[in-house]
């Protein structure tokens, strides 16, 4: 999904919003060759053959609008929607494994999604785009698209997820911090394909939260924060993941907040300090959704709210 008002930003990355760019909006994609892959091997073969000319078509909810605006003009599309082997969401070796064509709605409707430990994924799965788009859009596709205002990328950072990427040397596991390279750029190189996202299964002293401010359902975040924390037996914070959306070239980790939190007992003062760290780390672009100052303020507030909700999910009130 792509908001038309966001197009000029994407056309000139880093430049301020330029509404004159709207005149160039085009709604019919450039011509391309369509290849339907029946297996991961076949998809990989096509991508190796066509390299930088080709793109993977999964849910298509970002790629197709981008093609319609001619922001993307792949000569070859490799459709992986027919590969049933990539349509899964399952726990496997201590991680939740999400296959490349598993839809956002599959996560949203999973039987276990309301368990407190999955709070972060639950929250995200309900606010990505809109309910119809979520029936097509995929988690892995969102990670690969790596929109600066993406939701799954931000959640993946907070949860320290990994992505399985198939390349010439075989399939490698890429930690999310290395996977997200820059706006719309990931560690998936020419001729490669991301096959699976992996989120570690949180223990029962772990919970998270996703807090998003959007102008309307389906819009990209004005600001959003993903948080996931775990407590040790004494009630101190053992691990912390804090990340922001729409606060930089792609989802950003708030290292300072994580360092502040780890080893400490939860308190209102600690949450405020973490929020202030998020505000300092946030480097948003001012646009129609809000000014830089407003978005930085939101980053701090949303991290505090996310931490508070995570703690509430663990039965701790601060």
């Amino acid at each position: 999904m792509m908001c038309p008002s966001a197009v000029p930003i994407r056309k000139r990355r880093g430049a301020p919003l330029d509404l004159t760019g709207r005149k160039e909006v085009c709604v019919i994609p450039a011509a391309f060759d369509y290849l339907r892959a029946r297996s991961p091997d076949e998809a990989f073969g096509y991508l190796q053959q066509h390299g930088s000319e080709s793109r993977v078509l999964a849910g298509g909810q970002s790629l197709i609008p981008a093609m319609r605006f001619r922001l993307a003009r792949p000569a070859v599309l490799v459709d992986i929607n027919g590969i049933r082997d990539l349509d899964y969401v399952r726990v496997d070796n201590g991680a939740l494994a999400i296959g490349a064509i598993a839809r956002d709605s599959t996560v949203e409707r999973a039987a276990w999604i309301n368990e407190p430990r999955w709070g972060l994924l639950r929250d995200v799965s309900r606010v990505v785009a809109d309910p119809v788009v979520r029936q097509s859009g995929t988690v892995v596709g969102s990670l690969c698209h790596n929109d600066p205002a993406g939701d799954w990328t931000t959640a993946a950072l907070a949860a320290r997820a990994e992505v399985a990427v198939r390349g010439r040397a075989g399939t490698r596991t890429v930690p999310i911090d290395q996977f997200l390279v820059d706006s719309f750029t990931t560690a998936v190189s020419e001729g490669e394909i991301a096959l699976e996202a992996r989120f570690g299964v949180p223990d029962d002293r772990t919970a998270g939260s996703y807090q998003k401010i959007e102008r309307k359902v389906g819009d990209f975040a004005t600001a959003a924060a993903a948080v996931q924390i775990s407590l040790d037996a004494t009630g101190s914070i053992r691990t912390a993941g804090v990340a922001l959306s729409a606060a930089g070239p792609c989802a950003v980790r708030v290292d300072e907040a994580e360092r502040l939190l780890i080893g400490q007992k939860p308190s209102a003062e600690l949450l405020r300090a973490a929020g202030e760290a998020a505000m300092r780390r946030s480097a948003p672009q001012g646009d129609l959704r809000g000014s830089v100052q407003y978005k930085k303020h939101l980053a701090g507030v949303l991290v505090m709210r996310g931490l508070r909700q995570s703690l509430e999910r663990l039965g701790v009130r601060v």
Partner: protein
Amino acid sequence: MRITVAINGTTYEKDVEPRTLLAYFLREACGLTGTHIGCDTSSCGCCVVVLDGTRAVKSCSMFAVQADGHQILTVEGLANGAALHPLQQAFWDQHGLQCGYCTPGMMLASFALLQQNASPSEAEIREGLAGNLCRCTGYQNIVKAVQQAADSQIRAGR
């Protein structure tokens, strides 16, 4: 590329360019103009159709070639002959439309919603239709219509 798509139970076999969007295929190649095109970029929901019986898709953001070998339900396929589908009857009874432009998408998104959840709460209906925009400010009656359709489908044992 030659594709075969079962639309509303009728098989259509056509040559299409890969870049043809499903919405345009339905309207221009198959003559099924009940599927409307609004924003053309997956924001408004008026082009929603149902893929393979349960999945609502925005047909402006899916290529027709992706529907090859699949089943599509459009608004033209809802009624059974002269008998309106419970959703159509409910939209009529509850005045769930004014200009009607968003209505096919509303009904098809609701169709998929009721497949997933036969008796949604008012909040669940509002959430489920959050990707469908109505510019005549008719959400109140749209929600009532979906509630009526859910009730009548349950009563009919469907």
